[in-house]
């Protein structure tokens, strides 16, 4: 339900659906998201994982615990109340170096996690019209499931400014990818691998900028993902940045068109003046600026969430009860 009058919109809400832990790119994008959220430049509307490996949910849980609690002096306190969604499945766990580490988490079973398409839908319902963006890194499985829910297309059209897709393993679930490209009701910005390769994450920052906490989960994941030192290709970071900061000139865009998958499973853009899809393009002049921004934001210290306020009615009732007790 959209209230009639909005005086000031809150920062844009980000719905982030990723293959967290399959590579380091998706993890860095989550760190970037937290950096912007800590500076009130966006809000984390929801987090979901789009491949069936509970260890990915545990990693996400560990990162969320870190960001939600580190600011209060307890690096591994309770996780935020935001439900974490992950697609359920029976695929045997793959040999993924980031997930090989035992991440501290209470998640043990599938029902410790949420149904991802419902997490996304419910999160979007809590956003003002046109004040949410979605970022996809990994297969389109969850987004296709979201499209299958009743009455979701109008919700997406109303709430979501843009869907930013990092190429990565987008086409790993081919039917889902085809469905999303064919039916998605909002503009799509597609970030090809090449952009991620042109704008990698500077690995030297891991030992310097993240050192304020020796148990920083992003730094630990980065070290686990490859042999240090290395600069990680980062299409998900580019997709995330373009979604949160579309008007700051970090990237350029192709002309409009319609995305589809060719016979090799490669995403291609058919130019069309009426098309709502575009390719993201790197701007060489922005490379250094973006590398610094990636570092500053991804390594930003956790920020304490604002304290919860009680509704006035409860405060009034408590005061009345207190007075009654005193009178007695």
């Amino acid at each position, binding site marked *: *339900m*959209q209230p009639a009058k909005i005086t000031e919109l809150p920062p844009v809400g980000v719905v982030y659906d990723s293959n967290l832990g399959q590579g380091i790119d998706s993890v860095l994008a989550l760190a970037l998201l937290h950096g912007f959220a800590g500076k009130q430049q966006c809000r984390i509307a929801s987090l979901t994982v789009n491949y069936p490996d509970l260890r990915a949910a545990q990693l996400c849980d560990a990162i969320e615990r870190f960001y939600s609690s580190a600011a209060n002096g307890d690096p591994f306190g309770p996780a935020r109340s935001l*439900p974490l969604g992950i697609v359920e499945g029976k695929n045997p766990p793959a040999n993924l170096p980031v997930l090989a580490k035992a991440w501290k988490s209470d998640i043990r079973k599938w*029902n*410790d996690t*949420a*149904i991802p*398409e*419902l997490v996304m839908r419910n999160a979007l319902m*809590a956003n003002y019209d046109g004040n949410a963006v979605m970022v996809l890194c990994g297969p389109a499985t969850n987004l296709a499931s979201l499209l299958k829910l009743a009455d979701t297309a109008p919700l997406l059209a109303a709430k979501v400014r843009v869907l930013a897709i990092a190429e990565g393993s987008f086409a790993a679930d081919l039917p889902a990818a085809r469905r999303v490209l064919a039916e998605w009701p909002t503009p799509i910005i597609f970030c090809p691998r090449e952009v991620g390769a042109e704008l990698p994450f500077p690995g030297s920052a891991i030992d310097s900028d993240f050192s304020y906490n020796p148990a920083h989960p992003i730094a630990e994941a980065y070290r686990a993902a490859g042999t240090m030192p290395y600069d990680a290709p980062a299409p998900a970071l580019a997709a995330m940045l373009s979604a949160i900061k579309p008007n700051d000139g970090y990237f350029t865009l192709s002309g409009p068109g319609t995305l589809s998958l060719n016979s090799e499973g490669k995403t291609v853009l058919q130019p069309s003046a009426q098309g709502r899809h575009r390719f993201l393009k790197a701007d060489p002049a922005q490379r250094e600026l973006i590398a610094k921004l990636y570092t500053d934001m991804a390594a930003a210290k956790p920020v304490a969430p604002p304290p919860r306020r009680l509704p006035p009615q409860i405060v009034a009732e408590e005061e009345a009860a207190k007075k009654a007790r005193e009178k007695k």
Partner: protein
Amino acid sequence: MIVTRKAVARRTLLRGIGATVALPFLDSMVPALATAATTPKPPVRMAFVYVPNGVDLRNWTLGYEGGLDRMSRILKPLDPYKQDINVLGNLTHNAGRALLDGPGDHGRCSASYLTGIQPRKTMSDIRAGVSFDQIVGNHVGAGTSFNSLEVGLEDARQAGDCDSGYSCAYTNNLAWRAESQPLPPVLNPRALFERLFGEDAALTPQARRRRNLYRSSVLDLVSDDAKRLARDLGPTDQRKLDEYLSSVREIELQIARADNDSIKIDPGFDKPYGIPADFAEHFSLMTNMLTVAFQSNLTRVATFLVTREGTSRAYREIGIPDGHHPLTHHRGQEELMEKVAQINTYHVAQFAKWVGKLKNIQEGDSTLLDNSMIVYGAGLADGNKHSHEDLPTVMAGRGGSKFVTGRSIVYRKETPMCNMFLTMMDRMGVPTEHFGDSSGPLEGLDLA
């Protein structure tokens, strides 16, 4: 083969002047030559028992899945019936959340509980949605006297601001006939009784009291009819009929006691004529009547708003003079949390008595409980946090011997409560593709 037994029609009524009493399901209602395939099955009934202000989750949650074993402190009263219930975890009502409407969780959670719709935040032009019990009632009500029954225990206004700008119509009703038309619960046992069995509800309390000095029992009014019928019944059905009519008589006596009841315990508000002063007795009386209504197929659908959402009712009956709602905002104070747990346990104890009654009523080779889906639940999980996920939910009964019971089932987080409604609609013979924010039927309840 000579068939001597006469079949009694399912819709047989005992009639007298000013009174009509429907009959329970009797063996004689099964035709003598019926086979298993042609034997009419007792109808499936459904009811919701709603408690406000969430629960003390520490003492509600079982903490395990699978066969019900050790019951939590609050659920302990249901221990004798644990093979007849399922405890469901992680069901969520997203429509109860603030979304973009700010404070007012109590107003939202009750209005959205059976409608699956976030209500409009207003005190005047109210709007929610048609509740699913009404959809079911409209479909299955043709063979009954009432599409649905709405009952409650707490007198509550229907207008004004009851929660941060939400109309009292939202906190004080569960069933919604239309999106702007809630169905206020009947609080007065006599009014409900007369709705079920007689037509003198329009009399003033004084006139009714005067008339009661001379009036006979409803059973006296229909006694000739009852005797005629009994002659055609076998010994088992005669016993069933006797038991059933005795329970109707017991309700009459309970109501008569309530009429003459002086207020023994101050419940914190004025009690209208005919409402028992004692909470447990009031609860028992209303559920006795719902039982009879189900037993005799007067209705198949009921909602029971135990007390209104956000209520500050005190429970002096169990030594708690504090208001329920302020207690739930305990901010972690152990003393207040203990009182919340006591209130929650007290509520479940009353519910357990009703489950016991339903289990004791035989219908063919099953029980009334087997042929019911009685959901006990709340629109808030944690009353302190105002959370709308992992809502406390117990489903008693097997939905017409369709559900496996005796289990703790924990669904994945964010599973819509409306999924349970879809499943219940299906069991009630009203298959529906989508309701509220449902994503599909609730899995895991059905027999393999």
